[in-house]
């Protein structure tokens, strides 16, 4: 039995598998099985729900449960849409790139199985600009899949139709938010939409739509072929499967690895990333991309899963950690993150549109040594304004996470900037 379903075909030193090579390695068995053995698509939805697959785009919502909200039956609106979220613009996140460049047929197979489960007839891959190699490889793989009869009209002679289009974004981080993504696919400004209605009911062009992360979709066919018990057995926690975990920053061997869901932070950092570079100490880390709260050394033995990291006061997010070492200024790092979010805010809600630039000003002043003691309280207040429930989408609460947690764990470093009237890390 395979234990690394997502990456078993991936070797970046060569071209990804062609459709023939992919089939020879067991590929497209999931499509055969789905279309021929699961005559009731709803049984696929139940299977994926039971397997415990949770969305890998950051929020960790149950994938099967999400699918179960799509209205089905003869009176349900048509067409239904499936959208793959390949925007991957969260700073410090570089996991979907591996799947897109390394094994494009696996994503296509996962999408066909998913589309069948919700009976969608049109699918899009929303790919960020800049993933040019992935774009070439996906285009080729999609053409091969059409030619082999896995896409198009009456797939495998079953009467199930699916068209798959590749959309390359014109670039803006907010496009990754699923309702903003739908506006972008409709050729509009990518402002998020009000929820409800949720996309499952009224999404792209007002039709039922499922948006799913690249990594999530790459799991689906494996669950169909190998079953729930196998899938759960891959994991070391209650969520099923494996996870792509990544590490960037000043470690010996930055990278991304497919590991059992729920390995500890320490294992990822020490066994896979090789530990800190010589002469550097770990000061803190963002567990799952730019919009997650800092954790510190005392959290190293925690399991990297949604529940455990959540309990520790952060989020597993995308599972790609960013390491802060002791020779990098934490205020500078938070300033860099906050500048990003301020620039990428779509401008719809006040706490985000105004709060983020203000936070940048405060952080700039502190970093330069021109901050005032009351600035720390001001920053904390901005974080509260940007917190959950005050804005239209999760960008602002996400942006507040590294700021609020840095005030908690690195307060004395902020205070040193204020007291010394300079950045102690700058010579």
């Amino acid at each position, binding site marked *: 039995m395979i234990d690394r379903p997502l990456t078993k075909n991936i070797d970046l030193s060569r071209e990804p598998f062609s459709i023939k090579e992919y089939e020879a390695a067991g590929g497209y068995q999931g499509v055969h099985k789905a279309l021929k053995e699961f005559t009731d698509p709803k049984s696929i939805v139940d299977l994926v729900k039971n397997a415990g697959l949770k969305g890998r785009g950051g929020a960790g919502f149950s994938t099967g449960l999400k699918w179960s909200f799509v209205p089905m039956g003869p009176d349900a609106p048509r067409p239904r849409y499936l959208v793959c979220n390949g925007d991957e613009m969260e*700073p*410090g996140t570089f996991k979907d790139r591996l799947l897109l460049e390394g094994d494009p047929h696996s994503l296509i197979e996962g999408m066909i199985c998913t589309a069948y489960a919700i009976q969608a007839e049109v699918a899009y891959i929303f790919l960020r600009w800049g993933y040019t190699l992935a774009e070439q490889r996906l285009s080729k793989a999609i053409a091969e899949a059409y030619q082999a009869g896995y896409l198009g009209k009456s797939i495998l002679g079953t009467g199930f139709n699916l068209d798959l289009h590749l959309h*390359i974004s014109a670039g803006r981080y907010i496009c990754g938010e699923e309702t903003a993504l739908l506006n972008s696919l409709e*050729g509009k400004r990518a402002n998020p939409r009000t929820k409800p209605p949720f996309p499952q009911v009224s999404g792209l062009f007002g039709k039922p739509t499922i948006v799913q992360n690249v990594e999530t979709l790459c799991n689906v066919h494996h669950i169909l072929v190998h079953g729930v018990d196998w899938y759960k057995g891959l994991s070391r926690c209650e969520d099923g499967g494996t996870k792509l975990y990544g590490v960037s920053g000043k470690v010996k061997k930055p990278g991304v690895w497919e590991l059992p869901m729920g390995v500890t932070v320490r294992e990822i950092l020490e066994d896979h990333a090789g530990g800190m570079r010589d002469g550097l100490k770990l000061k803190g880390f963002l567990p799952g991309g730019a919009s997650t709260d800092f954790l510190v050394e005392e959290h190293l033995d925690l399991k990297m899963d949604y529940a455990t990291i959540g309990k520790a006061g952060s989020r597993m997010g995308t599972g790609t950690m960013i390491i802060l070492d002791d020779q990098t200024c934490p205020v500078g790092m938070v300033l860099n993150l906050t500048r990003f979010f301020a620039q990428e805010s779509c401008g719809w809600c006040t706490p985000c549109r105004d709060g983020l630039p203000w936070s940048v000003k405060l952080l700039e002043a502190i970093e330069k040594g021109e901050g005032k003691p009351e600035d720390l309280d001001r920053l904390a207040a901005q974080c509260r304004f940007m917190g959950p429930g005050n804005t239209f989408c999760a960008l602002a609460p996400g942006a507040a996470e590294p700021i609020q947690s840095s005030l908690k764990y690195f307060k004395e470093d902020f205070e040193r900037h204020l007291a010394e009237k300079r950045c102690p890390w700058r010579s």
Partner: protein
Amino acid sequence: MLTVEERQEIEKEIHHYEHKQAACIEAMKIVQRHRGWVSDESIRDIAAMMDMSPTALDSVATFYNLIFRKPVGKHVIMICDSVSCWIMGYENMRDHLCRKLGIQLGETTADGRFTLLPIVCLGTCDHAPAMMIGDTLYRDLTPEKIDTILKQYA
């Protein structure tokens, strides 16, 4: 005026969507690929083809980071300024590029060869610092490596 080729490419994209206007971003990218940027005239031409007003199309154009509404140099250098690259030495790479090219971020060299822009995370954080020139990604940058790369575009 849009060329026949541009029109054909845009027509093909229109078929991928339930509504014609959904293809407007693709249309602007197609024109930009041919001409380097999207002028006011192109906005008017594309808008007419999409049954949109030029203002509506421009409000879409200006939302996105990579629709250029001003002319750019022959090669657009986009250097990542997000967190992992920042930790790994973005500021030094930026200063080196600015010095080499004699321009600041957002500017174009006098000979029109290079435009230098900051860009958000390129999703290659395990090989930071990184930049793209046109469609090509360059990773694990050092000042020496930047010098060698720039020579290929000289």
